[in-house]
């Protein structure tokens, strides 16, 4: 049985003043914190004496815990420090739970109650509890349990309307199991709410992201802000987003864009934005750090997401008196970041001046935060010197830390002032049922409305501004469901690609006014592709969106201006799409359209293509990798264009895998394009018809051997059929109002005839798209649910699977 390492306990309330780079510390004066009677905070244990008397320090909870939510050590407590100063009286609110650990707490609006997450013993889960902040007549603090079950519920906060928001790793939800496989295949945290009175009786799950959602915070307008780990193809960072309390209307707050350069020469100053609290409307303080290994500790950062172009939005008093109604005051496109502690690394480097964690805001605007000296990462475990988080007030003006409380034997975290505060307005909810059969409605008023600073090339476009391309070319919007390896057992990579699993839910028509509208399955992570009359994506949205049952998630355009006025065009109310009614994309999981290479793509190649493009006709290139340590060289023989099913072994992302020659031929050149000449752990050398420097057929058609000008084109480009050479060679017929209009995506010339028709083989247009559009636009996946034996659930009941 483990016990706490009490020998290290030094109840350190000394008010030392020490120079620590930019950070110095002093002690709170006897008067305490103005306007704050007491502080609520959590103590967490780090140091354990094992049964064999050895000492273990647990900082990161195991190497897989990139987000600190399953790092259990017994001996924590929830505490009240009153008055809020170094010599205040400490009250343990959870003294009855001697083997508990805690992860998140908040104070109610009237400052009479706290909500917290507690795991009572090693076999328990983290669940949500409330405690009255005044002791009863028996001297005890009244505790109630609000959630239970086989899941962890952490990071609770009070939100308006008598609700509690938190994050949960609940499995077996109506949408099926979701797990983040990237970090040791653990579950992914998602947002949920309960009511204070009803607890789990009012439990509502929000739409799902493919990676973790953590650290919810309350915004001035009653919405829930949160940090979301975004993993989409090459996108891999933690952003701030917000949602209505019923899970509807998720929006970006900060981190999606680089932001404007600040006076420190930075845009977004680091990869991950965590532990955010609002200082004033749309102005936040949080932690910027690496997304792993720093246990959420990093530099303090001020995040100003106000619309600086609107003077009303820059006046805090206008928010309280209703003056901002009708003003778009959140501008996530041009967020201004100020790192308040510039000497603290914003990545995972060891810090010369410690790291900050879990800041909150005092009534006077100062920042209450935990801070620990030293490197503050899992290296601390090696030296058996865990970081010593104490509670401080940080003064941005002086850069000083003012000590409030520090127990050197524990982490003192999640400090919040116990003070009443105004309850933001209640936002009416429409998520009344956890019923995955009720769709979410998504669409746009006018898909051509955008302020993206982008141009499109390929097929009919040549550096055409995205707005123009959308307005002139978008005829439909493809809705794509994403899934991770939980839905494809045994698959951690979906092929020679960084994209996740994908299924096409459908392609909704864009009407003459630019509108479109669909009913989509709720909860699922989705992304959108406006497509042209050839079926080619004009843009591939690289961000997951999601909705809840019954939600109406229509936006103005395709990433319209965040600060503009989104109004329908003249005569566009209701939109034409609304007049036609939403298109239903709500098939059961087993019936959704996927493109498992071996089942859908390869048969077309076998029937139409591989007799001409095979092992005997193709050119080859040879990829040789040399182990930088052993000097052992391994050579892989890659066909330039073998469309047969012959197995070919290749190297990709640290693995050797075998795929059909067709798949390797098409997607390996772009893989090489990423690696060529740049790999740091073993120079890649290619000989033969090596991949071309550019993706498309820029110097003429390819020969039967699959080469052009002596090199192998990038036949398939994950995420972009428009940039894929195979798509250009096969070419596509245009359709207007469902009828072939005689146009082609690329001009048909003597040099570039329709292929394979020029060789006497005819492909249907469906076959052309199955070969040359979907595999590319969806991301170049080989694997799908439909070729990995996935068994979907029905109505959230995993005991009754539906056979595939």
């Amino acid at each position, binding site marked *: 049985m483990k016990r706490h390492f009490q020998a290290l306990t030094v109840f350190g309330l000394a008010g030392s003043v020490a120079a620590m780079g930019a950070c110095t510390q002093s002690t709170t004066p006897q008067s305490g914190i103005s306007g704050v009677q007491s502080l609520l905070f959590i103590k967490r244990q780090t140091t354990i004496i094992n049964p064999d008397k050895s000492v273990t320090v647990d900082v990161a909870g195991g190497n897989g815990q990139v987000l600190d939510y399953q790092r259990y050590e017994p001996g924590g407590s929830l505490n009240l420090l009153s008055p809020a100063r170094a010599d205040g009286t400490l009250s343990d609110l959870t003294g009855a739970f001697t083997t508990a650990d805690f992860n998140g707490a908040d104070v109610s609006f009237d400052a009479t109650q706290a909500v917290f997450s507690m795991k009572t013993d090693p076999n328990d889960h983290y669940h949500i509890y409330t405690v009255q902040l005044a002791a009863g007549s028996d001297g005890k603090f009244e505790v109630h349990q609000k959630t239970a079950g086989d899941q962890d519920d952490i990071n609770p906060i009070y939100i308006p309307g008598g609700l509690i928001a938190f994050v949960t790793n609940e*499995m077996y939800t109506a949408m099926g199991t979701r797990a983040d496989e990237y970090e040791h295949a653990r579950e992914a945290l998602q947002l949920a709410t309960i009511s204070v009175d009803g607890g789990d009786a009012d439990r509502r799950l929000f739409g799902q992201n493919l990676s973790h959602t953590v650290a919810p915070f309350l915004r001035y307008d009653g919405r829930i802000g949160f940090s979301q780990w975004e993993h989409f193809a090459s*996108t891999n960072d933690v952003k701030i987003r917000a949602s209505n309390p019923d899970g509807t209307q998720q929006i970006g707050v900060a981190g999606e864009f680089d932001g404007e350069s600040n006076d420190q020469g930075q845009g977004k100053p680091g990869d991950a934005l965590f532990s955010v609290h609002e200082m004033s409307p749309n102005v936040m303080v949080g932690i910027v750090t690496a997304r792993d290994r720093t246990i959420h500790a990093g530099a303090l950062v001020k995040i100003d997401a106000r619309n600086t172009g609107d003077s009303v939005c820059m006046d805090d008093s206008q928010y309280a008196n209703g003056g901002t109604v009708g003003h778009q005051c959140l501008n996530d496109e041009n967020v201004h970041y100020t790192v308040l502690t510039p000497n603290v690394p914003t990545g995972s480097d060891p810090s010369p001046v410690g790291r900050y964690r879990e800041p909150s805001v005092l009534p006077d605007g100062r920042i209450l935060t935990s801070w620990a000296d030293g490197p503050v990462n899992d290296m601390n475990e*090696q030296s058996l010197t865990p970081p010593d988080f104490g509670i401080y007030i940080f003064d941005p003006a002086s850069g000083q830390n003012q000590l409030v409380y520090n127990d050197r034997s524990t982490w003192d975290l999640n400090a919040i002032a116990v003070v009443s505060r105004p309850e933001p307005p209640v936002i009416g909810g429409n998520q009344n049922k956890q019923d995955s059969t009720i769709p979410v409605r998504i669409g746009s008023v006018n898909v051509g409305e955008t302020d993206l600073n982008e141009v499109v090339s390929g097929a009919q476009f040549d550096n055409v501004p995205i707005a123009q391309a959308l307005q002139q070319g978008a005829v439909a919007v493809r809705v794509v469901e994403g899934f991770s390896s939980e839905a494809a057992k045994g698959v951690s990579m979906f092929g020679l690609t960084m994209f996740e699993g994908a299924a096409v839910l459908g392609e909704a028509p864009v009407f003459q006014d630019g509108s479109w509208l669909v009913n989509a399955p709720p909860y699922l992570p989705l992304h959108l592709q406006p497509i042209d009359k050839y079926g080619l994506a004009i843009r591939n949205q690289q961000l997951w969106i999601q909705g809840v049952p019954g939600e109406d998630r229509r936006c103005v355009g395709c990433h319209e201006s965040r600060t503009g006025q989104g109004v329908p065009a003249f005569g566009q109310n209701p939109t034409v799409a609304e007049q036609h009614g939403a298109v239903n994309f709500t098939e059961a999981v087993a019936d959704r359209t996927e493109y498992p290479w071996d089942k859908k793509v390869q048969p077309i190649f076998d029937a139409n293509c591989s007799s001409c493009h095979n092992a005997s006709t193709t050119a080859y290139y040879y990829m040789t990798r040399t182990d930088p340590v052993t000097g052992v060289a391994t050579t892989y023989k890659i066909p330039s264009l073998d469309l047969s099913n012959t197995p070919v072994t290749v190297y990709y992302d640290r693995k050797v895998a075998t795929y059909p020659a067709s798949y390797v031929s098409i997607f390996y050149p772009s893989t090489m394009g990423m690696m060529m000449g740049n790999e740091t*752990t073993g120079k890649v050398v290619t000989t033969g018809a090596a991949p071309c420097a550019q993706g498309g057929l820029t110097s003429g058609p390819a020969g039967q051997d699959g080469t052009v000008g002596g090199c192998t084109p990038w036949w398939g480009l994950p995420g972009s059929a428009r940039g894929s050479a195979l798509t250009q060679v096969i070419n596509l017929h245009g359709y207007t109002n469902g009828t072939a209009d005689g146009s082609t995506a690329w001009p048909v010339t003597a040099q570039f005839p329709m292929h394979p028709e020029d060789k006497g083989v005819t492909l249907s247009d469906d076959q052309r798209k199955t070969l040359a559009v979907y595999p590319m636009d969806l991301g170049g996946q080989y694997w799908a649910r439909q070729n990995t034996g996935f068994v979907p659930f029905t109505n959230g009941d995993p005991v009754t699977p539906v056979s595939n």
Partner: protein
Amino acid sequence: MRRNNLLKLAMGCVLAVASTFASGDASSAQPPRQVTPTGGGIAGVYGTQRADQAEFLSTSDAIKSAAVSGSPTLIWETLEHGEKIECLDCIPVVAPLLYSSNAKNREIAAWWLRRRIFGVFGTGEVYDQTVQALQTSSDPLRRSYAAYALGEFLAAPGVAACASAVVSDGDARVRAAAASALGRLNDDGGGALGQALSDSDPTVKLAALASAGRINSFSSVAALSALTNDSTPEVRRRSIEILDALNVADALAPVSAAAQNDADARVRAVACHALGTFGNPSALSILQNLSQNDPDVFVRDQATIAMRRL
């Protein structure tokens, strides 16, 4: 450690000077981003990526040094950042960590090894050796660590070996580790997990229960229901939690009995929660009584919450 790190690392020098638009930027003074990729590197293929996503690398010497150091933190930091390091002669140094007394060492060693291209999954190599260790080692602790490693390898061949160990190994530690491994492998082992629920040892049952709550599809609900009468309170509590999570409404009777009669308040509390999940109105009177009369406040809390769900 994320799966695209190879590419991140490969492009680090390029990304260091690349502009960083996460998913397309709004109007600005900067030149427009090309939607259609045209160039080389990740930036060309997938669009730009932030330079700060690159991580530092361990060296092969550091891996070998750390592996023999005995320092858990050094081991896992070095291996974690050695994901992309090809080092054949590191493998025999790291492989013994699969049998370390420190669970974190075992986990990170298996993780690092399963990311190897060569030297692990070939015939007679580490993976085969691990299967052999599970099947033939005379040391039950070693067999249990081997089972654990097979789970962490996340490779399908481990299913059969672990399933066999769950039902046939003579040592409870091995059976428990194998049951846990099946959970990591997302597989019930052809019914082995269900059989583990009937094991004589509570640690095996608890391991099987945890896995039953994590795998994609688990259907041995009769065995789950039977555990509501187990002699170990923790087993009773966990079995009811899993019945709750799987929404096994057919378990109404045993769960109702547990809510009313179990001596352990925590069992009664989770039973009340499960009755709320099952949603059968026939449980209302039971819950009403418990909400008013159970001596434990958390049982009363859960009974009250469950009543609101009926």
